[in-house]
């Protein structure tokens, strides 16, 4: 079976043809450099992506915290992982790098926070005015 891919290793965007049989790459053509071949070998058999999305935060200054998978996960698992993520929530404060969920669908990948979300102050000092950093 032949698969056609656009190489995204660099801006050139070579059009690659990959021949795959029984889940094994037989040949790669159209690439101008070795990086293209490496890309094609993975992309044709088991494409992987880092997934970035958001998780609900309870009691935070923001309603969501941005998250990502700490390593590329198989592309075909993205819809399932999104369903999983939609059911999650985390209590504020959230720290950057905090692990929200371990071993996503047995991939070994972790879902980690990519920002901090402080806890919402219990009683605002001045209702209606969000505290700002002071001028010099």
């Amino acid at each position: 079976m032949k698969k056609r891919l656009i190489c995204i290793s660099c801006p050139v965007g070579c059009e690659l043809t990959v021949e795959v049989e029984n889940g094994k790459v037989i040949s790669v053509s159209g690439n101008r450099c070795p990086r293209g071949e490496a890309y094609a070998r993975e992309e044709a058999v088991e494409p992987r992506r880092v997934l970035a999305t958001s998780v609900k935060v309870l009691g935070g200054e923001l309603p969501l915290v941005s998250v990502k998978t700490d390593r590329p996960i198989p592309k075909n698992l993205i819809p399932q992982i999104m369903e999983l993520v939609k059911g999650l929530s985390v209590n504020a404060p959230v720290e950057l790098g905090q692990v929200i969920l371990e071993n996503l669908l047995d991939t070994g990948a972790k879902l980690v926070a990519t920002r901090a979300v402080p806890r919402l102050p219990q009683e605002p000092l001045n209702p209606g005015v969000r505290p700002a950093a002071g001028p010099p």
Partner: protein
Amino acid sequence: MRVRKIDVLVVGGGAAGIAAAAAAAREGADALLIERNDRLGGVLEQCIHPGFGLHRYREELTGPEFAHRLLGEFDSSGAEAVTGCTVLEVNPQGPSVVAASPKGLLKFRPKALIWATGARERPFGALRIPGARPAGIYTAGLAQRLVNIHGLLPGRKAIVLGSGDIGLIMARRLHLEGVEVVAVLELRPFPGGLMRNVVQCLEDFGIPLLLRHTVAEVHGKDRLQGVTVVEVDEEGRPLPGTERYVEVDTLVLSVGLIPENRLIEGFVPLDPLNRGPVVNARLQTEVPWLFAAGNNVAVFDLVDSVAALGARAGTFAARYARGELPEGRAVPLVRGENVLHLVPHRLVPGVPTPVYIRVPHPLPRARVSIGGVVTRNHVGVRPTEMIEVKLSGEALEELAGLPEVRVEVSPA
């Protein structure tokens, strides 16, 4: 009004401004950063996708992570920041800057000013698309802020006009959040964003990219009901008979960024094609105390470049504030063929610099020439990806000896 004297004042707390203030402080200057929003980081905060930092940190980061790293550099630099503070005017006499904040109006008298205000999105109204004016039409950046910061879904079924990177990223983001993304339309015959985003944001999810297509009309009195999609010819004119109605409740626009220079354009020369100030290799504008960095100079592809420019501007502005930046000879860089955006506009002897070049249309094979001294062959040059050529050492000195340096990209 309170007046504060300062060595280096930086306006704009995005990647360029944060890097600039940190670099100025590291260079020994008393540096202050002012930002109109409540948090520093600019647009990085809402760019939750990966793809940042490969140059600066040799690691692929998301926008918030990149901002965090940069803010780490800022915090350890000794620079100060004020948020919720909006600049109102820049008075070239003095110079002085007036800003508004909830604590009152503030006046600054900096020795050097770094303009790092970024870019704004071209609005729907500027496209002069006929039809109704319903709710549900958003620029991609606004849609991104609604989704990623406020946690609000703009609609249920969307079409994206313009294949700039933010448009592609938002197509994927909306798709992942359960919004049906019907298509991404691009007026030109080639995508406006990076190939990698075309693959990872559209192809991965089966979202069609329709090149040479645009929106001819929007429909819906209250909330958007649909759009008329039409094919266009080489000049971007609609082809009669190709119209079709597409039912959507949301139109997301990614139709260009405009460098934001409103408060300085009255007294500093701008490059009409970059739409940003003319700068030399030190990121110094034609007004010696005014430096500029980031997307207000020209719209860049990578935040890494923006931060790098910011840091350079910070260093040189600090030296200027100390009186250690003599006005010397500068050699003009002039546009030759196939050069749309060009940064900087002047070489300064002894100041190594990257030269950023954007071509107006794709070239399968191209030869880039900087004054005939530095030449490079490229395969597949596209408007979506700037060419970066680093100048230093002997080549730079040779170029610095010329009356002017012609930058051109010729088909090879």
